[in-house]
């Protein structure tokens, strides 16, 4: 199946047309500084099509920066990042085009505050993909229904709960038929009772075959949906393993220490 037909496809994972053998996302020897601070240290990471990778680690370890580097919301100092075999363009149209193929869900939702829920979801397809209003709205309603907020389509984001807003943000990203979805702590700004509705949406997305990179501390989600856990500390990848192995039998001291603190509560 080619990517261009994916706009009519209800299965999000199936749209990711990739070359076989090539990882969908590849970071090699990526380094990044903020001034004197070395936030990403020689990061090497490959994500295959359909894979769900969890990035976990203490606050300030560079997880967000890693996530944001993948669609170049942060520029890197050295190394190389490729998405679907193509090196990230530096700027301009080519970069915008690449970003359209990489969905991003933020901790603070970042829904367009002056646009209705429906407009939030149709804006990208209409302005970036050139979809007709009718097509874009049909598809948007389908996605909003799938994440369970179809009945809120004509409200403004501020009228929705946090959990609903985050599900709209997921629908907005899906409307672009992304090849890969990045989630940066999608549930950490939510009240506890709303976390599961968002995680459930993400689990069903994972089950449908979407390629996902998820920064999260939600172990339940990691166990239910993740193929691999990447543990970061101080800007470096310290450990990579399966969720089960990581949570029950971490190898590094940093990971043991971190899990002890997180699980200790």
């Amino acid at each position, binding site marked *: 199946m080619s990517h261009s037909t994916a706009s009519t496809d209800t299965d999000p994972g199936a749209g990711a047309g990739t070359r076989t053998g090539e990882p969908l996302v590849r970071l090699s020897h990526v380094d990044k500084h903020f001034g004197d601070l070395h936030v990403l240290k020689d990061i090497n990471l490959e994500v295959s099509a359909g894979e769900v990778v969890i990035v976990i680690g203490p606050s300030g370890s560079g997880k967000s920066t890693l996530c944001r580097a993948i669609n170049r919301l942060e520029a890197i100092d050295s190394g190389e990042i490729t998405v679907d075999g193509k090196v990230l363009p530096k700027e301009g149209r080519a970069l915008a085009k690449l970003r359209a193929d990489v969905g991003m869900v933020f901790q603070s939702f*970042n829904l367009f505050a002056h646009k209705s829920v429906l407009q939030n979801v149709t804006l990208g397809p209409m302005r970036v993909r050139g979809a007709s209003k009718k097509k874009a709205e049909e598809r948007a309603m389908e996605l909003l229904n799938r994440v369970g907020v179809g009945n809120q389509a004509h409200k*403004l984001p501020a009228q929705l709960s946090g959990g609903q807003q985050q599900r709209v943000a997921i629908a907005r990203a899906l409307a672009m038929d992304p090849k890969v979805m990045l989630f940066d702590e999608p549930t950490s700004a939510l009240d506890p009772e709303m976390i599961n509705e968002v995680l459930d949406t993400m689990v069903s997305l994972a089950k449908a075959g979407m390629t996902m990179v998820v920064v999260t501390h939600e172990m339940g989600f990691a166990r239910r949906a993740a193929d691999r856990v990447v543990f970061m500390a101080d800007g470096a990848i310290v450990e990579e393993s399966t969720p089960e192995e990581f949570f029950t039998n971490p190898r590094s001291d940093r990971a043991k220490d971190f899990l002890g603190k997180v699980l200790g509560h």
Partner: protein
Amino acid sequence: MSEYLSDYASLLSQYDVLGAFWVNIQLTFWAAIGSMVLGSVLALMRISPPASMRAVGAAYVTLIRNTPLTIILVFLVLGVWSQLTISFTDDFNQNFFIYAVIGLSIYHAAFVCEAIRSGVNTVPAGQAEAARAIGLSFLPAARLIIFPQALRGAITPLGNTLIALTKNTTVAAAASVTEISALMKTMIEFRPDVIIAVFLTVALGFVIIVIPVGLLTTWLSQKLAVKR
């Protein structure tokens, strides 16, 4: 007292006070449009990705904001018009009027730019990031996402700039435009008997012009509120 009033009445019939005010209103109108357009472009430059664009925008604002308006107008009339003999029309007065509009626009564009930029600063950074993340490039992101939300925060400083512009149209006298302050000078010279009434008339005229601007901006900033 009644004698003073009849003197004042003769002043109004002798000089076209309303006509002069009308010139100020026209100057305000055209320069508001001019400075809005130029100021928006400058604001775009100041938030755009290329460092060179941002530098040009910043240099413009710093230079123009720190130059007295009179100097800009005199430079346009004596420098550009007299020396370079660049004219827009054959009509002498029309030409001065156009130069005054250009000078007022150039000057106030710097303030419009800063007003818009302060509005942009009220928009959370996440809005621009989300726009970029769905593949919008800089100009569509600015037009569709940033500016509409920035407008609300920019309304009050824009209103202040408009009020300043309205009053600054009196400086157009320096560009030989016969507006109200030029007329006021004439009236003071030839009718010193009603000098206080002349001042009060001109002051009151500006109050009447400016008050609706204040009301409009208050109303707009409420109407344009973006809920978060």
